[in-house]
């Protein structure tokens, strides 16, 4: 005699094979963005660094230079709170603030949402350059693709030469590394060769550019490098 337990026969546990990317949904949105950026011919970079490394100051300089050269540039700037950065940059280029309400990183859907708002000011096809300034954080933005053509990681001279060794995951995910505030290098005793070796240890073969938002050093080189990304496949 077969005894059927209440609720029917006890099901055997079974294994469902998945092998799916955890961030598949984000990656799908990012993939859609990348395709749009590519079709529109706009070079898009995702700027990541610790808070206070000088992303916004350098971006202001870069956008101003782009304007002088007739390069059409815009920015999406992410922060946990306030639209201070957007107001600061609005004098030089079209910009939208992404307020993450405390979240520690940007996700592709946030970029997609705010891109629509930005496009009310300037259509994507009319842009040469779009910079997405991520939330200041050297850990969490690592995992989230935003559809960018290049990931730019910034390292200020005041942070210490070994920052890349302390945050290898993010630096390893970079395409370009910018050393910022080099006008302060001497004052803080920054050892540039040691810093470059630290970058090369975790991110070999990446271009490393010295920059200063105060003096303008390196800003033209950054602009040239980012625009060259438009021709990349």
């Amino acid at each position, binding site marked *: 005699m077969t005894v059927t*337990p209440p*609720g*029917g026969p*006890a*099901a*055997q*546990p*079974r*294994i*469902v*094979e*998945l*092998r*799916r*990317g*955890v*961030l*598949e*949904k*984000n990656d799908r949105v990012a993939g859609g963005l990348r395709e749009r950026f590519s079709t529109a011919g706009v070079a898009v970079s995702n700027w990541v660094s610790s808070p206070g490394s000088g992303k916004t100051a350098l971006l202001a300089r870069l956008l101003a230079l782009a304007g002088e050269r007739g390069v059409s540039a815009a920015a999406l700037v992410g922060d946990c709170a306030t639209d201070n950065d957007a107001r600061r940059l609005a004098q030089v280029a079209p910009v939208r603030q992404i307020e993450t309400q405390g*979240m*520690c*990183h940007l*996700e592709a859907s946030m970029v997609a949402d705010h891109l629509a708002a930005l496009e009310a000011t300037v259509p994507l096809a009319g842009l040469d350059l779009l910079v997405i300034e991520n939330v200041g954080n050297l*850990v*969490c*933005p*690592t*995992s*989230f693709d935003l559809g960018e053509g290049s990931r730019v990681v910034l390292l200020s001279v005041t942070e210490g030469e070994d920052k*890349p*060794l302390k945050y*290898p*995951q*993010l630096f*390893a*995910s970079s395409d370009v590394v910018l050393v910022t505030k080099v006008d302060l290098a001497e004052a803080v005793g920054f050892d540039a060769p040691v810093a470059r070796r630290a970058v*090369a*240890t*975790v*991110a*070999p*073969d990446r271009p490393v550019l010295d920059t200063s938002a105060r003096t303008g050093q390196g800003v033209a080189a950054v602009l040239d490098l980012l625009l060259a990304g438009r021709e990349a496949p």
Partner: protein
Amino acid sequence: MHELSVARAVVRTVLDAVGDDTVDSVEVSVGALSGVAPSALEFCWDIATAGTSLAGSGLQITQVPTSVYCHPCGQLVEPETGLCCPRCDQPSPDLRSGRELLVLAARVRDRGSP
């Protein structure tokens, strides 16, 4: 602390695949360069699964080490510092593993079974 976002993404992926079935455990792989801390992911698991058919399920994390192909040495190696070959100490840009962030499998039972 983005591991809560990651944990929620794991939950969504599993729910999409198994529907209403009860989930006993979920297996994920986390690469050393993925930017996800396994301990933080474990910490978030109960919060992310609460109120879903994954509530009370276990989370098994397989950690994937960073590996690079060292061209001067002609072999696949696991760096101890950055992406440097432990034999010749030269960094290699030829990354072969470490970025993984995957839901591998879920152990499930039909809804209502004990």
